[in-house]
């Protein structure tokens, strides 16, 4: 998943959680990048017609941006489900975050053929838990790293 898709996914999840445009600071926190880096990428997403930024309010995804964000979220769900259901990985959230930048949507589609993903995906994704809610594991919300 490329960097732009990771931003789109983060903005989408924050918008869902807050029911409002995503504050740039929140996006930067979620991606563990500086606010300056977040601003720069948000500008690029605006140029590509994927997001709209309104001063003092935050960033919202356009319809095209939402489609891309949901695809990215689906890829992330596939990686998580694959790690849990096929490879039996305990720290799957941590590993999924490490792997998402290297696993492309095309590759995820192939992995998807062996994981029994639910039809409601990617709406199954719980941003509080940072995990697919349909997974057959017990989870608690993770604490911030610092």
């Amino acid at each position, binding site marked *: 998943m490329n960097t732009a898709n990771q931003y789109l996914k983060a903005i989408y999840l924050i918008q869902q959680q807050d029911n409002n445009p995503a504050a740039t600071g929140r996006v930067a926190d979620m991606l*563990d990048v500086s606010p300056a880096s977040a601003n720069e990428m948000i500008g690029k997403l605006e140029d590509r017609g994927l997001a709209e930024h309104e001063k003092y309010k935050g960033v919202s995804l356009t319809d095209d941006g939402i489609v891309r964000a949901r695809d990215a979220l689906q890829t992330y769900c596939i990686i998580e489900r694959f790690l849990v259901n096929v*490879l039996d990985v305990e720290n799957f959230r941590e590993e999924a975050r490490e792997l998402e930048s*290297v696993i492309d949507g095309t*590759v995820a589609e192939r992995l998807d053929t062996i994981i029994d993903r639910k039809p409601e995906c990617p709406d199954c994704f719980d941003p509080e838990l940072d995990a697919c809610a349909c997974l057959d594991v017990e989870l608690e919300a993770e604490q911030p790293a610092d």
Partner: protein
Amino acid sequence: MSLGQQVGSDRQLARLLQIGIVLEEVVEARASRHYQSLAEEDRTLDAEIEALLEGAAEESADHRKRLEALIEGLTVDSIPFDEIETLVEARYGQTKPEDFDGVLYDQLCNEETAYKFYDDLIEAIEASDAEFTVDRQRLLEVLRGLREEERDGVEEVTQIMEERE
């Protein structure tokens, strides 16, 4: 969340190589299943596709062994290969392509996906300064070799498809 394509540790590298093994298992299982379906029906009608699928299954088995050899050189816990093989075979036990076009298209997707995977992995390793317990040069040589063979596979299937149009 990790931004940018990078591989930073033995564990992450092993996991990615393991994903490569699963992709190869999927290719092998699908090719074998398609090959068997040809055997039952009209294998004699299409020796070219039969040879293609047989070759694809053999190549995937060989790729898997090369990936396993790389993982053995890394400092990670052992990985249950047998379980993965059983699971993938079980998933594909029931699948059957509808016709020769379906077989070829599926095979093209397999080869393209594997190529994309190795290409992204090589890029992510090249972008990283991390030191792995396996020799970096050997790691990249093996992965570039696999990528090359997948590219040849894409070309081979594309050529057969074009000839049949």
